[in-house]
């Protein structure tokens, strides 16, 4: 069979340079949806677009509990008590990290010139690290959706580290395996505790950990509202992350 000739005019260009443009277009669409909402439109029109970037859909959750984290970005003061708690709980070596705090200068601001941004594994619904792993050493837990590591299977090829859009993995030389945040599943959640070490240690209530499938949780209520903007980091990766950011 003769293959059909490619029509380059109609094909979608998949260059990484164009990704932000696509995102911008999506954002504009979102803006229209919100306008529609204010003019008496349907709330569903907003959520249907949000679903493309976010890991959830209003009707159903892939996991139960669907562990997730909401980060109040403007509350972070970089005291790093979360990092200390994480290192202590999960035996993280000095050269590694499971969570980190980034900072950026806000030159446009009049008063507050610096912003701190806590980052960790986003426990994506479509995790590129899992797709990339050749030995299935990293996998998505079928019950709670946490991206887990099976240290025995890891061959240290670091494909997952390259694939991760959030730079959330490091190679642990002591255990000869890649290590990452597991929402403290191994050391806390599986032992009956309900929060992660970082969110418990935070004095400014920056990190809200919870079950996104529980409508009674603060997490659910903050993410399912339209007054305050909630966003994810690098939505263009298409990984459908489960760590959300907001201000307030």
């Amino acid at each position, binding site marked *: 069979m003769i293959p059909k000739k490619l029509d380059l005019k109609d094909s979608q260009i998949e260059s990484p340079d164009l990704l932000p443009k696509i995102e911008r277009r999506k954002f504009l669409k979102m803006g229209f949806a919100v306008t529609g909402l204010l003019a008496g439109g349907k709330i569903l029109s907003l959520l249907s677009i949000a679903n493309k970037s976010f890991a959830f859909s209003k009707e159903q959750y892939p996991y139960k509990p669907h562990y997730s984290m909401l980060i109040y970005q403007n509350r972070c*003061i*970089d*005291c790093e008590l979360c990092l200390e708690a994480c290192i202590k709980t999960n035996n993280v070596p000095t050269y590694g990290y499971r969570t980190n705090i980034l900072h950026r200068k806000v030159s446009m601001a009049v008063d*507050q010139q*610096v912003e*701190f941004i806590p980052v960790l594994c986003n426990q994506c619904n479509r995790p590129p690290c899992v797709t990339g792993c050749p030995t299935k050493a990293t996998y998505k837990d079928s019950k709670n959706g946490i991206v887990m590591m099976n240290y025995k299977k890891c061959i240290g090829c670091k494909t997952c580290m390259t694939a991760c859009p959030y730079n959330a993995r490091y190679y642990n030389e002591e255990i000869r395996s890649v290590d990452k945040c597991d929402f403290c599943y191994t050391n806390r959640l599986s032992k009956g505790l309900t929060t992660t070490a970082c969110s418990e240690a935070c*004095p400014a209530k920056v990190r809200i950990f919870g079950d996104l499938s529980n409508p009674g949780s603060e997490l659910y209520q903050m993410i399912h509202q339209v007054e305050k903007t909630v966003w994810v980091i690098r939505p263009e990766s298409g990984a459908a992350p489960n760590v959300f950011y907001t201000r307030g």
Partner: protein
Amino acid sequence: MKKLKILLLTLMLLTGLYFLLTTKSSLAEQGGNEDLIIYTKPVKAVSFNHKAHSEDYGISCNICHDKIFQMEALNVEKKDDFNHKSFSKGKYCGVCHDGKKGFAMDRQCTRCHIGVKGLNKISKR
């Protein structure tokens, strides 16, 4: 007689200069550099610009010293209630930073909180 007067005057000047230098250096030792006092308790780290408060804003010394803060820098860290809870009740920084006299303390956290990153930056200097 004139010689004695000059001698006394220089002696006084020298002692004055000595005190000025020693107090400045002690503030520098305790607080990072000459203008800033860096608090590391109860959290790392908060920067207080002493020079800006005393010189630029024209707040006279007796408004803070000795009733709210002792002269010795960082001495207040020893107190258990040196935290935001007390501030909102109008203690310590909260005496002025109530949203009227000074900016409020329930937002724009990083105006004072420089974090561990800010602390490392200053100690490297």
